[in-house]
């Protein structure tokens, strides 16, 4: 038997963090967007243990401020794309600078300097990732997906989809379906 699961990475991550922090009896407060406020000082050993525990889940404690900011940008974008049922109509640049209290120019610079990509590119990748999820897991039609993700047209969505994946959405769906039936047959 093969099960297909649908999960919310953000929620899963929060639960893991909560569990691990509680296990090590660290007083904390989970803030939004991958930030944790720790009330007491934590011993080095305890911190190392937390770091090791979290690494197992591919959760890394980021201490570098720039890295933190980049992570915050990413988290904000992901949250924005995933949390609302429908994408807000305001531009992402506006949203980001409002949320993070930095000028958009500063954010793009810092992002591009430290990653191989631009904020715009990252947004597109994330939106297409969400589109994949909606196509595969929710079995939405392209029209529904383009509405949810605020694309002006289906054609625009599928051309962006093709830019990111090199595939048309229908070819993409076909491949995933085939792959699943193949692995089901092997079981």
């Amino acid at each position, binding site marked *: 038997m093969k099960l297909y699961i649908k999960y919310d990475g953000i929620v899963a991550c929060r639960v893991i963090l909560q569990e691990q922090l509680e296990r090590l009896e660290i007083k904390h407060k989970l803030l939004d967007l991958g930030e944790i406020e720790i009330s007491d000082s934590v011993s080095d050993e305890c911190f190392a243990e937390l770091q090791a525990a979290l690494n197992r889940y591919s959760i890394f404690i980021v201490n570098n401020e720039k890295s933190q900011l980049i992570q915050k940008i990413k988290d904000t974008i992901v949250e924005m794309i995933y949390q609302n049922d429908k994408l807000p109509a305001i531009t992402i640049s506006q949203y980001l600078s409002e949320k993070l209290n930095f000028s958009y120019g500063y954010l793009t610079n810092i992002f591009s300097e430290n990653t191989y990509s631009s904020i715009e590119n990252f947004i597109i990748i994330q939106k297409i990732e969400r589109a994949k999820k909606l196509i595969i897991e929710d079995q939405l039609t*392209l029209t529904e997906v383009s509405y949810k993700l605020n694309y002006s047209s*289906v*054609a625009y969505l*599928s*051309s962006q989809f*093709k830019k990111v994946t090199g595939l*048309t959405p*229908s070819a993409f769906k076909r491949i995933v379906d085939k792959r699943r039936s193949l692995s089901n047959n092997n079981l």
Partner: protein
Amino acid sequence: MKLAKLYKNSQVFKIALGIAIAVVGYIACVFYTQMRSLDSSVDIITNATETQLELERVLSIISIYETNLRSYIITKDESYLEKRFLRRGEIETNLKRINVLVANNPARVKDVKRLNKLIDYRFKLFRETLLLAKSKMPNSEVLNAKLQESNDFTELMKNYVYKTINAEGDKVKIHNNNHQFELQDSIISAFLLVILSLLILLLSFNKMNVDIYELKRANDELKFLNHSFNNAEKIAGFGHWKINLETNTYSFSDNFFRLLGLEPQSFVPSLENISKYVHPDDIEYVTQMHLDSLVSYNPTSLMYRFVLPNGDLKYVMSVGSFTRNGKGQMVKTGVNYDMTEQYKRTIELEENNKELISINEELESFNNIVSHDLQEPLRKIQMFISRIESTEVDSISEKGKGYFYKIRTSANKMQTLLIDLVNYSRTIKGDKVFENTDLKELVYHVIDDLSSDIEEKKAKIDLGDLPTVKVISFQMEQLFINLISNSLKYSQEDVAPEISIFSEKIDKNEVFDNEIITDQDYYKIVVKDNGIGFKQEYAEKVFILFQRLETGSKYSGTGLGLAICKRIVDNHNGFIKVISEPNVGSTFSIFLPKKA
């Protein structure tokens, strides 16, 4: 109708005939008894009449005696008395006869006995009267008294006899009446008998006639059928056979023998005799299968070979099955079908097929060579050129640069040709998976893919609404890539290309290949440009493989693009046509069936 049906049913007819015969028999019996009773009535009447006659004769004799006696008394002439005894004898015979006549009637016998006594007494009176008359001294008084007495007695006797005669007469009357009735009944019976007999005769005759006619017709039909069956066997090259399992007798049709190259019925049909003609390699299998089937009653279907007397081989398909004949006996019947020609043709076809497959394989490997092995070194040439152009550019002379430019153009041209060849072969072979595809989305991708060319040419592309159609999407993509790149390629100098792609309602009078194309059955998709166009007379030619209209170096082409388009549209059971005018532009119309 119903009656006619009943008439034709011989079972019903048999029953009717039986009933009719019973009725005739019954009426005949009735007639016989009537005749018998008629006969006896006639006897009775005759008897009565004779009795009457005899009685009257007796009376008359008595009267004669009396008259004679009186005459003697008066005349004393002895001659009157001469025949007296004779007369008495006559009466005796008469009485005897009466006795015979009335022997069957006890009452009458009694009457006759009494009459006898009366006669005896009367004769006694005669004698006494005669004695008195003959005496010498006749006492006339006594004589008169005696005569008187005689007279009275005669009267009495007469009365008695008449009474008897009357009784007989009544009897005759009654019998006579009965006789009349019986006679009438008999006539009716006889008439009925005759009519009925006649009717039955007629019906039987008619029925017989009809039956004979039917039989004859059936027979004719059977003959004809047999004849045509024999002919059919001859023409179609099959023979039939029959095996009665109960009697173990085999029978083969004429053509069965002909199939073996023999004269019809040239040997006694039997398993043993036919086995001689079966190919030695097949005999064991065929016999086994046949004998097995005789046990299991399973139908057989065997293919085997006969070796003809002239040594030829005959491939035969023998199909047999079991059934019961009219007598309820199990019978295996079957047909031998001459498969020799078919077999040979199949072999030939198989060989051709093998050849085709190998040709196809060759083509495929050729295709592989084209798509991979040829492209591989070409790609390397291109790579090295690009390496040289980017890194060694400073150390090459202008002339060298020019050569490299030409190498690159040639290599690129070759690559285009190889890609087109691969694409063309892919439209012939390959997976043809039809899926519902939004053509607008598909064309959008095509435009996207061609965006660098489009930008380079500063082309304006107008994409209208297109339907969703069941198509082989990669082929459709190829179709639009080819059409749009064609439009871009063959654009007019100094005029920005304008290409519009849209769907259109089909005009009523659209005809292609003698077929009327209606909006009901087809989608029409138009790709229209303002390019250099061509003369309308080439409209058919452009779709032919390796036919190029523009040979100038200005326009590079492989002559495959539109041929590929045509193949793709063909693969979709659609049509493609073009209307073009030099220096105005071309309009390609694609017709795709709505029902794939």
